[in-house]
């Protein structure tokens, strides 16, 4: 075996570098315990939600369908938060741990590094979904809303999880400090999720004109559109053709985020974060 066989070319039988990066990231996340501890926390949180919803339902404070809707939304939104946080740690965390320079010094393309890390950041979502579904089944008590929950819940979550993992990574690429990356990501999360919760209230308390405006706003906000979709599907058992428009934004959101991440920001990944550096360098 020659050490220096040919510096210019990779071995044809070597694994693609995005996969090597992804495998290492998965190991860091799951064996290192970060993803595992977040999923554990997620499970506990879902258990608390389930207990509260079930108690309210038993006291007839919450209709069964409403309870199913709330637990599905909670499972999805908290699952997305996990993906966002893991994405937000991807580059700024490596900067802080001084492990990014070693990675950037290899001939691996920046885009492959980004793809590998993105796939790893997405990995908590299927696990979160697997944890959540038994809760949905038990709490629905065989109600017809379970079918709608099992159809639309995983679809909405699977559309939004890449977007949130990607959003966290975008923030992380620009931030030198992990703390900043986390704070900005949580801020973005709140900006997306809070209006969606508020809009839901607005539709039932204000005039029809206001409700229409609120609908437009909800349609533009991926979280709002998702909430509305789940509401119409689970509470109203709306057929597919009626809820379909609400899928548009959750479907477009990941496309936009991933296009920006992989096509534009990824190749410009640098040792130091910041917009200015991003604009001035293309190595």
């Amino acid at each position, binding site marked *: 075996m020659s050490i220096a066989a040919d510096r210019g070319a990779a071995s044809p039988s070597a694994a693609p570098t995005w996969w090597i990066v992804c495998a290492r990231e998965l190991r860091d996340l799951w064996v290192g315990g970060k993803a595992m501890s977040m999923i554990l926390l997620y499970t506990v949180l879902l258990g608390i939600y389930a207990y509260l919803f079930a108690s309210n339902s038993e006291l007839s404070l919450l209709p069964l369908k409403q309870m199913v809707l709330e637990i599905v939304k909670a499972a999805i939104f908290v699952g997305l938060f996990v993906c966002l946080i893991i994405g937000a740690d991807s580059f700024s965390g490596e900067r802080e741990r001084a492990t990014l*320079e*070693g990675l950037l010094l*290899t001939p691996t393309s920046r885009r492959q590094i980004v793809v590998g890390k993105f796939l790893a950041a997405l990995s908590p979502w299927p696990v979160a979904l697997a944890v959540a579904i038994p809760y949905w089944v038990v709490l629905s008590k065989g109600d017809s809303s379970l079918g709608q929950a099992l159809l639309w819940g995983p679809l909405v979550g699977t559309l939004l999880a890449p977007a949130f993992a990607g959003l966290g990574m975008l923030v992380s690429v620009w931030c030198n400090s992990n703390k900043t990356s986390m704070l900005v990501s949580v801020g973005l999360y709140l900006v997306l999720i809070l209006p969606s919760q508020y809009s839901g209230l607005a539709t039932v308390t204000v005039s029809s004109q206001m409700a229409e405006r609120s609908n437009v706003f909800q349609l533009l906000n991926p979280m709002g559109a998702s909430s509305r979709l789940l509401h119409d599907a689970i509470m109203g058992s709306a057929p597919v053709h009626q809820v379909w428009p609400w899928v548009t934004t959750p479907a477009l959101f990941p496309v936009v985020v991933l296009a920006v991440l992989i096509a534009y920001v990824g190749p410009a990944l640098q040792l130091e974060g910041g917009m200015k550096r991003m604009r001035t360098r293309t190595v």
Partner: protein
Amino acid sequence: MQSDHAGHTGAGTDVLVAEGLAKTYGPRHALRGLSFTLKSGRMLGFLGPNGAGKTTSIRILTTIMEPDAGHFTVDGISHKHPDQIRRRIGVLPESFGLPKQMTGIEYLTYFGQLYGRTASDAKAIGLRLMEEVGLKQRTRSLVSTYSHGMRQRIGIARALVNDPVVVFLDEPTIGLDPRGQQELLGLVQQIASDRGAGVILCSHLLSEVESVCDDVVILSSGEVVASGAVSEVIGRTEQNVIRIRVPTAAMEDAQRELEAIPAVRKVVPAGGQPGWLRVELDEGASEDHPINNRILETLIRADIPIVSFEPEGGRLQDVFLQLTAGGIK
């Protein structure tokens, strides 16, 4: 271990050529016109005070950063092809982190794979490198359990996984005890001699650089203030000063006796150091070696004990201090 590439890049060929590299951060010139050549099998000491532009230079030469002006080639490859250059260089950054969940061999295998090797090839090379850097017994230990010296060694092994033509070592001995420093520098010398790689060594340990490096580049405020073979650079500095240490009580007598010697221009106490005298000689007097004997003879005749006697300017440290006296601009 003899590397396979010694022979591809012949001994003494130019493996790194930098010409007029410049970099500015806003109004501040971090680097101005850095030019030098590194030959295969040679070690080049890269020196400068903090803020002189060393890290910027290394980041440019390792393709982490682009220069604003100038160009460089590694093994004949232009800096316009950073991915190809990265295949030909190995880098030990000043501060580098290690993943918590990986063993030494897993760490090297991972990096070997990132250079396009199959897992089995990367592992075999990793094992050989761990043996080469003296970590054979710790291949299966988690890198997070390594001591500082072992971390530096695994960092050097990582820098060698692609059998580089040029190796950049940024402060490899920082934080090591004297024995650790000596062992690591021995390892670095071995890299240059056995592998035939050009080595760039950034260090603040000037005596070490003087003893192991063939060439030196000294930076100050982003500019090259000296470059060339170590002996040449040392020879260029002013050497007409001698430092003499005598008992504090005898300083005045010694000063009077020394000032009476014709070739001595001035004798003053060395600032802040009790017992030390700084003897400045006339131009060209230092080339007349008997002057040292005459100074010693004068002091001995006057019955003044000589505690220490050393010509100034004969060491890399003196050159460094003289050339970088301007500090950070």
